[in-house]
């Protein structure tokens, strides 16, 4: 808001806008005149055109399991030809980046690839140094969705250590792969124990996880662990499930 200005009837108002702000070249905008009871409020809104940026705001990669999907991104903007971009972080080991050859006559850019080696919805950002003083860094978000065939519900099992008595919950594991069998469920970290139960009629397999009270120090306020479910699911033959308990351990018998 750059007003309000008090105007007499029949008198016009001329505005000139001037560029300001780092990384912001000449700005174009609209002027909105907002009539109030007596005064006029003047609002100048504009749209920033960056000196340098990517030609896309987001890379949405969806490789099939075991495949790699790639996309090209280029720098755009009035300073892009002067940029010497260098990737400092890809955000994940699943994502690799190769610079596009300068002799192809294209704008500076990269080929970004995601390897579909791990099912799930992965996300991160490319961090790029531009070599330009006006806009030294750029970030480009990417998503990489690799379809899974194995599901665990709930995916983040939680135990309330405050409550008395034995603590146990059942997670359900299912796969679209046929025939599918769970080979084992092992706790590899933490004060927990797991038991594979008989399959449900729909083919899903319950796994009961118990907290081993005796393995938790009396003054502990939380417990973490890891469950490994091994099956013949081709995409995730070894599924890792994080286990988490909160609260000061209560070892009293159930009320």
């Amino acid at each position, binding site marked *: 808001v750059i007003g309000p200005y008090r105007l007499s009837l029949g008198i016009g108002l001329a505005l000139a806008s001037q560029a300001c702000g780092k990384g912001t070249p000449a700005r174009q905008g609209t002027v909105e005149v907002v009539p109030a009871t007596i005064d006029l409020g003047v*609002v100048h809104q504009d749209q920033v055109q960056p000196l340098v940026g990517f030609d896309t705001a987001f890379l949405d990669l969806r490789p099939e399991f075991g495949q790699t999907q790639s996309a090209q991104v280029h720098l755009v903007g009035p300073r892009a030809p002067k940029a010497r971009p260098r990737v400092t972080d890809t955000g994940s080991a699943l994502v690799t980046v190769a610079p596009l050859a300068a002799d192809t006559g294209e704008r500076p850019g990269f080929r970004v690839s995601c390897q579909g080696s791990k099912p799930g919805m992965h996300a991160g950002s490319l961090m790029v140094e531009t070599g330009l003083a006006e806009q030294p860094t750029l970030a480009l978000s990417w998503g990489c969705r690799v379809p899974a065939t194995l599901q665990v519900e709930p995916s983040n099992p939680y135990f309330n250590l405050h409550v008395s008595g034995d603590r146990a919950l059942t997670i359900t594991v299912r796969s679209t792969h046929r025939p599918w069998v769970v080979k084992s469920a092992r706790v590899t970290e933490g004060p927990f124990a797991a038991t594979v139960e008989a399959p449900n009629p729909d083919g899903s397999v319950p796994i009961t996880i118990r907290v081993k009270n005796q393995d938790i120090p009396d003054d502990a306020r939380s417990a973490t662990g890891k469950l490994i479910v091994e099956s013949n699911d081709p995409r995730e033959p070894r599924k890792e499930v994080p286990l988490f308990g909160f609260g000061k351990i209560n070892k009293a018998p159930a009320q």
Partner: protein
Amino acid sequence: VFSQCRFHFGTIDSKAKSGGASLIDQLDYFIPGWMGTNGDTFDQGYVCEEGKEGAALGKLVPVVVSYIAAGYVKRHHQLCDANVSGCSGGDLAKNGAQYITQDWSAILTEYKSFAAGYANCWGTTRPIVFEMEPDWYQYTISNQTQPWTAAQAGSKMTELVNALKGSLPNARFSLDVSPWVGSNGSDSGKAWYSNFDMSLYTFVNTSGGGTNANTAKIRSSNNMTWAGLFAAAGKPILADTGYGANGMSAGHDANWDVAANINARIAEGVVSIAQYNPNGNWGSTISGMRSQLSTPKVCP
């Protein structure tokens, strides 16, 4: 996450403390000021002080509304919230997506700063819940100068959660509910939530406006229902009575004092209600109806 498996009541920290022990004893969580609205670095040490063991709110879980991305671009580009006009940079519902994309690196840095700050003062073993970025959906609407795709919104949210999780393994996350998503909420968010890695979230939560305790719909003007949301997101629901326009108090919502209403919502997946401006006798109201309340469907 909470100390007992029961329907949970919460309020903002100052209201809890002014209500005294009779109110605090009935609460399971408190809500401090929205995170990231004042500056680019951690400024919520007071949460750790008021919530530390032995302090007034020491037995409660902090449920922190994270507004870092919105707060950053509001501060740096003179934006208003979507329902507020008069800011020189425009408002979040029009310019927010563009500026958040532009400033993404700085926003991630700020997230990591707050995560480190909380890890330092709150620690990494006691539970803390973050309600992530109210109305994230607004950045995908066509009114934006550079709207995101839904997939982009989901991926960006994953990055924000990971930025907090990096320092806070004890953090649990809640995904915001905009009851107007898609066709005014008619699919209860099913399509919208398919763009998010729901394994990252323990809850979903309403924010920033009143919700209906006494109807199947979350809000009368939208088509999303409580039961539909629970089915679509697969997560228990943290409900709130909300602020009014411009953050002004919307007052106590007495519909959330009726046990029959709450039990109906419990049956549809609601596990808590936050009254942002409770009456002075709210503690005794809760105490009086506690025995009539059902046990929530899930107690994460």
